[in-house]
């Protein structure tokens, strides 16, 4: 039976949204402090305005719409999907006020790109942006990558019953600990430990390169946010190419991979069995897919690159694409020089993404692995006697039988992603962009990667900006909570 919503359901949803918006407004106080610290007056007022609007809206919704019903999954799903849209709109306010965007839509695009950990940018003159705004751009990735709702979930007490709904609504399908709130807290704990390690590592490299103390600190913090949350923003317009540092690139590779690994696997490696890394199904799928794509990428370079050049030109772009980070260390228009085969390999890497329950987007390694496994399973089945029953197994933290439910789940998500990748590419082609470029940008937006072949710029058609905003949003939430919300709205009209 489909639940038919009434006024009390909306009151619950709006109340929850109010609480989350209030939580978001407090995050805006961080760049506000940075503005004070760096004496950036204009930025200070931008964040006062952003904070005031968000906090007012939060308090208003909580006061006017009380919770009169138990919070259920349907409320959680609706809150998540609408919440991300509202957060990105509110997050765009201080960005737009910075005068570094040509329109509010551009600022919204940037904000959604940050929250969805995509990394596509429309900002103008990034090299002259204030520290406060840069802090906010990078913070959106950290908030979005960790999960806005996850952040709130670890502090909320009223939503315990629907906690799993919020958790799954944000495209996380594996619980690490039996209790979802404990899981959320574990994810935050892991992230903060890596944050300290990452910031120290990047700080040492940047300070040794001659950056001033405060700049080194801020840049290392932002690079960590972008690497671990696989966002891909950078404080300078050249992205990683600005630093001209092999050491920094190698360090970012490590944190990109950490971000792309399933949090469940982090938990397992920290608390249980370290050997799991060699046996894990997702890791094995990653080794296979990355290795294959790297070989083809090398072939696309016609094999005339020496190893270090291959690392910086090919390997770095590929790992950045596969982890969904979107960092690039190439000079202006560098990706345009890749051959069609090379670009196709980057597209495949972006489309696959990292582990489930990680900060990456895309189809995910687990689903890709399951699809491959079912293919071989089917071949084996045909080679067996007619009446025999055959079930394959996989090792993901523990040995398990590859169930039909898991296979169905993998194919459903694979289809969702594939349609969205192709749909976005078709829109690009209709607007006159070349097929491969359109596909590249569409996959980059949907899989929340952020590498760009050049289509994404402030001058692109408005319709394409809106399509990419939708793709980033849908890709980050992995469609389900959006479809459930649409169904929720549909039932209202059905009444």
């Amino acid at each position, binding site marked *: 039976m489909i639940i038919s919503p009434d006024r009390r359901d909306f009151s619950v949803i709006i109340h929850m949204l109010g609480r989350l918006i209030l939580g978001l407004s407090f995050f805006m106080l961080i760049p506000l402090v940075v503005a004070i610290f760096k*004496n*950036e*007056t*204009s930025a200070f*007022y*931008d964040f*006062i*305005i952003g*904070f*005031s*609007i968000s*906090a*007012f809206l939060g*308090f*208003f919704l*909580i*006061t006017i719409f009380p919770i009169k019903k138990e919070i259920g999954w349907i409320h959680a799903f609706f809150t998540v999907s609408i919440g991300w849209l509202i957060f990105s709109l509110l997050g765009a306010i201080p960005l737009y*006020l910075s005068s570094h965007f040509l329109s509010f839509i551009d600022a919204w695009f940037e904000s959604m790109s940050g929250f969805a950990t995509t990394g596509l940018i429309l900002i103008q003159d990034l*090299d*002259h*942006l*204030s*520290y406060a705004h840069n802090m906010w751009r990078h913070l959106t990735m950290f908030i979005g990558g960790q999960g806005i709702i996850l952040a709130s979930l670890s502090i909320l007490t009223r939503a315990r019953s629907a906690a799993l709904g919020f958790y799954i609504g944000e495209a996380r399908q594996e619980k690490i600990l039996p209790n979802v709130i404990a899981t959320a807290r574990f994810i935050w704990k892991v992230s903060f430990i890596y944050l300290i390690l990452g910031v120290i590592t990047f700080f040492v490299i940047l300070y*040794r*390169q*001659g*950056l*001033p103390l405060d*700049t080194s600190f801020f840049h290392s913090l932002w690079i960590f946010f972008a690497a671990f949350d696989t966002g891909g923003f950078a404080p*300078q*317009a*050249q992205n990683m*190419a*600005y*630093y*001209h*540092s092999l050491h920094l690139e190698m360090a970012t590779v490590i944190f990109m991979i950490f971000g792309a690994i399933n949090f469940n696997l982090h938990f397992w490696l920290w608390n249980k069995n370290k050997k799991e890394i060699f046996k894990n199904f997702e890791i094995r799928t990653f080794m296979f897919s990355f290795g294959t794509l790297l070989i083809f990428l090398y072939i696309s370079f016609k094999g005339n690159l*020496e190893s*270090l*050049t291959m*690392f*910086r*030109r090919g390997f770095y772009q590929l790992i950045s694409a596969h982890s969904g980070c979107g960092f690039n*260390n*190439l*000079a*202006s*228009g*560098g990706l345009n020089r890749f051959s069609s085969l090379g670009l196709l390999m980057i597209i495949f890497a972006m489309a696959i993404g990292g582990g489930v329950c990680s900060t990456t987007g895309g189809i995910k390694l687990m689903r890709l692995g399951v699809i491959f496994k079912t293919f071989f399973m089917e071949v084996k089945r045909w080679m067996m006697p007619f009446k025999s029953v055959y079930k394959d197994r996989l090792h993901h933290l523990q040995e398990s039988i590859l169930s039909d439910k898991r296979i169905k789940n993998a194919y459903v998500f694979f289809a969702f992603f594939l349609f969205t990748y192709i749909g976005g590419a078709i829109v690009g082609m209709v607007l006159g962009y070349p097929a491969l470029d359109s596909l590249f940008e569409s996959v980059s937006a949907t899989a929340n990667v952020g590498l760009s072949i050049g289509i994404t*710029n402030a001058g692109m058609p408005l319709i394409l900006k809106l399509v990419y905003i939708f793709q980033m949003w849908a890709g980050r939430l992995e469609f389900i909570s959006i479809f459930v919300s649409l169904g929720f709205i549909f039932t209202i009209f059905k009444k």
Partner: protein
Amino acid sequence: MNRKYKLKKFLLKSISISWLSLMLLSLNASFAFSQEISLEELFSHSQDFGGKTITTSGEVIGHPLKEDKSVWVNITSGNFHLGIFVLDKNSLESIKYWGKHQQRGDIISAKGIFYDECLKHQISDLHLVSFEVLEQGAIIEDSVSPLKVSIAYTLSIICLTMSLIYLIKVRHDKSKAKSKTYAGKI
């Protein structure tokens, strides 16, 4: 004698004309190689300029970044950026302003060898030969419009009022719940 003199004069004339032509030609060639090209032009036809001495210009941004005893300087022009590899970091002393927030960087004209695929650094870069500051940068004052300030104050007051209303409501709800429990106990 007169014939010999004429021949000598003719030869001298020919040599000087040829020398002048050669000089002009070489001048033209060096002009062609060190002509000022924009970063957009450079990256649009990067393969044509690979290994050649070029002169390009742009705003210096960020900070000088050390690499052993050398240093990297990044310049930008429009949506294009170029890393310049400088062997002698002391030569950068004439750059006063580096582009960042509230500061417009010096515009420099840099002459050097452009590498489309630099074997040493694995990217497209320019190995500097010489540079000059074309236009000095400046500190940009952080001006805030009075309208923005008044909007910020107004919104803060509205937000504060709303938060007070919320707190009053929370207190009221709590006392209501308490009195209900008390009445229930009686």
